[in-house]
């Protein structure tokens, strides 16, 4: 009974925060307070057990990788790469589409999605402004970028929250996730890019004139004429990252948790680049996300303590007697709930259910968890509001003053993203289901 009340409180909280994003922190903290109070008083749960249910390792990794991303971004390596992409595209629309989405995919593998967007979008917007583009291209280009961001995040265990949660809770090892998810994400990304390029070619859109292209490329070269890579950040950053990467690969064998490795690596880089690190810790950390997830984890911990998640897992197991059907149902449900509630709440709620299903022994854990991460990625790509990268990209495009060739302001919003979102959701979700069905 208490479990049912807790789950109702959580669902209501998630719906309200999705409806009023401007007050989502307030809503989630009220939800966490109500849930914790109910669990501790009416549900007789020990408050320390509730706190212990929060995966602190995950929060440490998120915090550490956030600092690492911000420090690494100051090397200007990624802006440099984005400018190189502009030059290599020769001002041709289709090459811009392919190259910028590819670089976004690569960046999102290691940086958080927001940092990756903030680094690449200014360069992309400059070249699009200079070349002049129509509304169709704008919608396609930014939609593809968001999906590339999501797929890149899902490709590695440190790219985005769902994968970090899987690694941080010890559900799957770093190496195992990388081996299973990375090829799948590259494959899905290639399919989506190829279909997008095919669609664009079919529309028969012309490239800008020779003068426009030459002028746009010269302008870009001038706008970034003296931007150089800061090697004093790049070299130690790459060095520390390689060490962290190596330790994550063997984390299980050396007995270090992923969180501790992250702490050590980021701590070392902060000591090396102390002045920049001080500035980032004071001003550049996304504490909002960390607090949001902490409140969310408290709610999930209360629910897990009440036994309701085990009950739901048991119910699903009874209803779907075939293991493949059970895992597929979980994945589809996870994808849709991600589209509505976003990746954090969805993955945090679904993971305990998935763990329960895996513990019953019929389904291989690694496959289920990677399938779940792919479903979250599919859901994140469904609606523009499903992932934080979407609203950020919308806001940056709106503020940029980008106009179409015809003159009106460029539009990139919920509705312009939706057709591509449905297409991307279908491809990623089907890809994830095939992956699981082949392996279970």
């Amino acid at each position, binding site marked *: 009974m208490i479990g049912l009340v807790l789950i109702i409180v959580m669902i209501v909280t998630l719906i309200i925060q999705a409806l009023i994003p401007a007050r989502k922190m307030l809503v989630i903290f009220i939800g966490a307070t109500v849930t914790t109070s109910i669990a501790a008083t009416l549900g007789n749960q020990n408050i320390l057990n509730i706190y212990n249910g929060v995966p602190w390792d995950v929060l440490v990794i998120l915090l550490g990788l956030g600092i690492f991303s911000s420090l690494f971004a100051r090397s200007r390596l990624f802006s440099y790469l984005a400018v190189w992409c502009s030059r290599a595209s020769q001002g041709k629309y289709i090459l811009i589409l392919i190259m910028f989405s590819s670089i976004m995919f690569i960046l999102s593998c290691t940086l958080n999605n927001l940092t990756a967007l903030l680094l690449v979008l*200014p360069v992309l917007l400059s070249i699009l402004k200079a070349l002049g583009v129509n509304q169709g291209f704008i919608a396609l280009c930014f939609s593809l970028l968001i999906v590339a961001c999501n797929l890149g995040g899902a490709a590695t265990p440190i790219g985005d929250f769902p994968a970090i949660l899987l690694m941080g809770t010890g559900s799957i090892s770093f190496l195992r996730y990388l081996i299973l998810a990375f090829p799948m994400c590259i494959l899905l990304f290639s399919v989506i890019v190829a279909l997008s390029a095919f669609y664009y070619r079919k529309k028969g859109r012309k490239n800008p004139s020779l003068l426009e292209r030459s002028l746009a490329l010269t*302008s870009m070269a001038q*706008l970034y004429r003296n931007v150089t890579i800061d090697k004093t950040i790049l070299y130690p950053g790459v060095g520390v990252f390689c060490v962290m990467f190596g330790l994550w690969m063997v984390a299980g064998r050396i007995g270090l948790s992923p969180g501790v490795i992250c702490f050590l690596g980021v701590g070392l880089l902060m000591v090396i680049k102390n002045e920049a690190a001080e500035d980032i810790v004071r001003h550049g950390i996304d504490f909002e996300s960390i607090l949001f997830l902490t409140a969310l984890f408290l709610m999930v911990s209360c629910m897990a303590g009440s036994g309701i998640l085990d009950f739901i897992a048991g119910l699903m197991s009874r209803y779907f007697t075939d293991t493949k059907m059970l895992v597929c149902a979980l994945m589809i449900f996870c994808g849709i709930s991600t589209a509505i509630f976003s990746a954090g709440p969805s993955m945090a709620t679904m993971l305990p259910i998935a763990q329960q299903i895996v513990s019953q022994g019929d389904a291989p854990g690694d496959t289920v968890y990677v399938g779940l991460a792919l479903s979250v990625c599919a859901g994140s790509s469904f609606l523009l509001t499903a992932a934080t990268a979407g609203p950020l990209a919308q806001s940056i495009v709106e503020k940029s003053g980008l106009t179409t060739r015809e003159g009106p302001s460029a539009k990139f919003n919920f509705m312009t993203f939706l057709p591509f979102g449905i297409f991307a959701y279908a491809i990623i979700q089907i890809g994830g289901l095939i992956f699981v069905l082949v392996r279970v």
Partner: protein
Amino acid sequence: MSEAAVISITDMDPEGIMRTISSVISELGAFSAALVLQDTVHRLTHQREAARLAETLAEYFPLYGEIIESGLSPNEAGQIIEERTNQLIEQLRNFSSIVVVGIESVILDSLSRKLPQSRFYLIPHSETIDAERILANFPANVRLIDIREIMGLGGTRSVLISYAFCQMEEDSFIYPVTFRAVGPDVRSAYNQIVGLNILSGYKRYLSNMAPLYSTSQFFTNQFRIV
């Protein structure tokens, strides 16, 4: 040079060209942007086509037309700017603070690098800029400031510089931000207010486009760049 390329240049929509170089005008300066355009056109076509483009852009970007009318090739313009900027550097060596109203990257790039001991304070001439990108192109002794900070930076070791375009006798064209920034109070706060003269005299391109100002109303000293 293919015929198609020549046709595409002369048939260009002027608004399309302006859209392409609008960021460059905002962040590099109108004169620097005109040089970028001249250089690009020079690489793609010949002088006659450059002049035809000047006609096409007459109402949109007259400064480009004035550069073409000056008869200087991109290389010649570059050499003159470099030589004159080096002379300007000698004049500015004794100043610790150099406040620059308006950005012209062809001048400021070498100025800021060759005077590393001086601090440069730039007041952009446009509001549609990417401040982070502008600063990433300059060394660490350069800062962007708001026009309201201009009085606080005055002093005997401070100089203010801005631009006077196409000066003809006593009159010249200036950036609107220069008009807003350099009043009698500011003139009294700085050791010198130097006007960098860019292109002398104006032909038919600029004459109907922008209001002319008496150069001495703004500048205590003048220095010819091109």
